[in-house]
C-alpha cells in the first residue's frame, strides 16, 4: 500500500515535469501551428545556463533566473530569426528548420561546455527526504518539483482565464485566423507565447538537472514523450496538457513498477518479464494510440 502511494507520487512528479514541457509546446503548436522540434533544445539551454551559474556562484537559487532568462531569450531569438519567417509556409518546412536547430544547439553546447555531462548540485536544504507517512520517506527535492509544477499549472490557469493576454491565447488556439482578422497584433502574441513556452522548458530543464544528467542531447530524450502528452491532451489545451501529463506520468510509472510483478502471478517469470517490460516501454504510445482511436482530437481539443 505504502509502495503504491510512493509510486503514485513518483508518477505525479514525472507528470508535472512532462506538463512543464508540454504546456509551452501545446501553446506553440495550437496557436501558431508550429511543430517545434527544438523545444527540447530550450530544455537543454535552460539546464546548462542555470547549472553554469549555480556552479559559479554556488547557489542553486541564483541559477534559476539564469536558466529562465537564457531559455526565454533563446526562445525569442528562435522565434524572431527563424520561426517568424516560416509562419506562412508549409508545416513541413518548420519541421526541417527546427530539426536543423537541434543539430546547431547540440553542437554549440559541445563547443561551449564539452561533451561530458556536467555536475549539478541540489539546493541546500533539499538534499534529504521527509517522512510523509510512517515508512514512506520521500526526497524533498521531488516534493519541490511537484510543488513547482502545480504552482505553474495554477499560474497558467489564472493567466489564461483571467487576463487579456490569456483571452487572446484562448482565442488564438481556437481560431487564429479570426483573431488576426479582428486586428489583434498577432505577431506580438506569437512572440510572447513562444517566449513563455521557452521559459517553461528552461524551468523544466533546470529542475531536472539535479536528478538526471545535464548533457548534450538531453532534450531529445524527453521530446517524444512531450509530444505524446500534447497530442493526448489535445493540441492547444493547457488543461489537456496538465491532465495528460499527470495521467501519462502515473501510467508510465505504474506500468514499470507493477506490470512485470502482476504478470508473474499468471505466467512463467521469464515470459512475464519479457511481456511486462515490452508493454511498459510501449505504454505511453499504446495509451496515445488508444486515446486517438476513441477521441481523434485528443482529450481536451481546443476547438476547430
Amino acid at each position, binding site marked *: 500500500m505504502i*509502495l503504491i502511494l*510512493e*509510486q503514485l507520487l*513518483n*508518477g505525479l*512528479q*514525472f507528470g508535472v*515535469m512532462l506538463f512543464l514541457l508540454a504546456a509551452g509546446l501545446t501553446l506553440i503548436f495550437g496557436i501558431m501551428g508550429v511543430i517545434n522540434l527544438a523545444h527540447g533544445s530550450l530544455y537543454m539551454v535552460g539546464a546548462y545556463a542555470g547549472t553554469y551559474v549555480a556552479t559559479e556562484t554556488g547557489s542553486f537559487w541564483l541559477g534559476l533566473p539564469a536558466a529562465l532568462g537564457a531559455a526565454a531569450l533563446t526562445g525569442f531569438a528562435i522565434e524572431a530569426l527563424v520561426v517568424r519567417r516560416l509562419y506562412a509556409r508549409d508545416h513541413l518546412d518548420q519541421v526541417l528548420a527546427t530539426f536543423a536547430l537541434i543539430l546547431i544547439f*547540440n*553542437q554549440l553546447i*559541445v563547443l561551449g561546455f*564539452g*561533451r*561530458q*555531462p*556536467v*555536475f*549539478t*548540485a*541540489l539546493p541546500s536544504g533539499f*538534499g*534529504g*527526504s521527509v517522512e510523509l507517512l510512517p515508512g514512506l*520517506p520521500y*526526497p524533498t*527535492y*521531488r516534493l519541490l518539483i511537484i510543488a513547482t509544477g502545480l504552482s505553474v499549472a495554477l499560474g497558467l490557469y489564472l493567466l489564461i482565464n483571467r487576463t487579456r493576454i490569456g483571452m487572446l491565447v484562448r482565442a488564438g488556439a481556437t481560431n487564429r485566423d479570426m483573431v488576426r482578422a479582428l486586428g489583434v497584433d498577432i505577431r506580438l502574441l506569437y512572440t510572447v507565447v513562444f517566449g513563455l513556452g521557452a521559459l517553461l522548458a528552461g524551468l523544466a530543464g533546470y529542475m*531536472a538537472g*539535479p*536528478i*538526471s*544528467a*545535464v*548533457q*548534450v*542531447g*538531453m532534450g531529445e*530524450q*524527453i521530446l517524444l514523450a512531450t509530444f505524446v502528452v500534447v497530442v493526448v491532451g489535445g493540441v492547444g489545451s493547457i488543461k489537456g496538457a496538465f491532465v495528460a501529463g499527470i495521467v501519462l506520468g502515473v501510467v508510465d*510509472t505504474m506500468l*514499470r*513498477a507493477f506490470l512485470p510483478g502482476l504478470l508473474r502471478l499468471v505466467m512463467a517469470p521469464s515470459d512475464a*518479464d519479457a511481456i511486462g*517490460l515490452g508493454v*511498459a*516501454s510501449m505504454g505511453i504510445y499504446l495509451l496515445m494510440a488508444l486515446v486517438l482511436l476513441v477521441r481523434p482530437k485528443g482529450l481536451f481539443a481546443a476547438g476547430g
Partner: protein
Amino acid sequence: MKKLLTAVGMAALMATGALAEPLKIGVITTLSGPAGYLGADARDGMLLALEMGGGKLGGVEVEFVVEDDGLKPANGRQIAEKYMQNDGIKLLTGIIFSNVAGATVPDIVDNGAIYISPNAGPSTFAGAGCNENYFVVSWQNDALHEAAGAAAKELGYKTAVALAPNYQAGKDAIAGFKRMFGSDVTEIYTQLDQTDFASEMAQIRSAAPEVVFQFHPGGLGIAFLKQYQQAGLLGQIPMVLSEPSTDAVVLGAVGEAAIGITATAHWNRDFDNAANAEFVAAWDAKYARPITYYASQGYDTARLIASALANTGGLDDLDAFREAVRAADFESVRGKFSFGQNQHPVHDWYVLNIVSDGNGGAKAVTDRVILADHGDSYAADCKM
C-alpha cells in the same frame, strides 16, 4: 545553395588533398550525441600516445584519420569503406558501440584489413564468430560485469537486486553479474533513455536486498546515482558496480553521491606502474578534463600498434604484423596484458573503493585484485 556547393567542394578537396607520407590508421568513433565523450576520450588517448612518440609509433611515422560515426551503424560502415578503398588503409580502430561494430567489423575483416577494438567487445565476435583479423584491447563485454559479480560474492552478500536497461547490453550485464554472483538476484529492467528512476528506487527499498548492482552507462548512470542518494538508499544498501557506471566523468558529475560504492575495473588512474604514471602525467599536462578508462584503452591501443610496428616497420607484411600484435609485447597501463585464443584480453580485474577526494567530490582508489588473469567465457568456442 551556393554556400552548400562551396562547402561540399571544400570538403571534397580536403578528403582527396593531403597525399602525405605517414602510415594512415583509420579511426571510426562516436563523437556526437550524449555518448560523444566516450569516443573523444578514446581518440585523445590514441593521439596522446602518438604525440608522446613524436608523431611516430614504434619508429614509424603515423597519422590517425578520425571520423565520427554519429552512433549510426550505416555511417560506420561508410567510413570504413572510405578508409579502405579510397585511402588504402589497412589498419582500423576506434569503434565505441557494439551495434556500429556489428555493421562495420565483418566488412573490414572480410576485406583483409585488421581491426583493433579500443572499446566494444560484443560476444558475436568473441566465440565461434572470432576472426584472425580482429583484436580487442579493452575487454569482452561480459567480463566487465563478471568482475562486479565476483566482487559482490566475495564481500559475502547473498541477495542482490540487479538493474539494467532493457536492451542487449543490459541483459548481458545482468547475465555476467549472475554468472559470478549466483542466482539469488531480483532483476529489474529499465527503459532506454529513462532518466527518472524513482519507481525503481521504491522497488529496491521494498525488495531490501543485501547489495545492489546496476549497469547504466554515462548520463543514465549519473541520474541513477543521484537519485539513489536522494532516495536515502546510499549508505543503507551497498552498491557494487561495473566499470561503465563509475567512470571518471560519472564520478565528476555525481560528486559525493558516489562515496561508499564498491566499483570494479581493469584500469584506474592510481595504478602503480611506470607506463601508467607516464600516461597520467601526460594526460593531465595536456587536458583539463578527467582521465577516463576509455582514454586508457585508446592509449593502450596505440601503444599495442606501436609495439607491432616496431617489429615489422610497417604494414606491408600484414601476416607478420598480425603475429606481432598477437604477441602483445608492450607495457600496458593496466599492468599485465596478453591475448587469449580469441584475441580478446586476458588481464586482472580489480576492486576499487569510491572515497571522498576532500573537495566535495569523489575518486576511485584501487584496493585489490578480484579476478586474476581473467579472459572471457566465449574464448573456448573460438576455433582459429
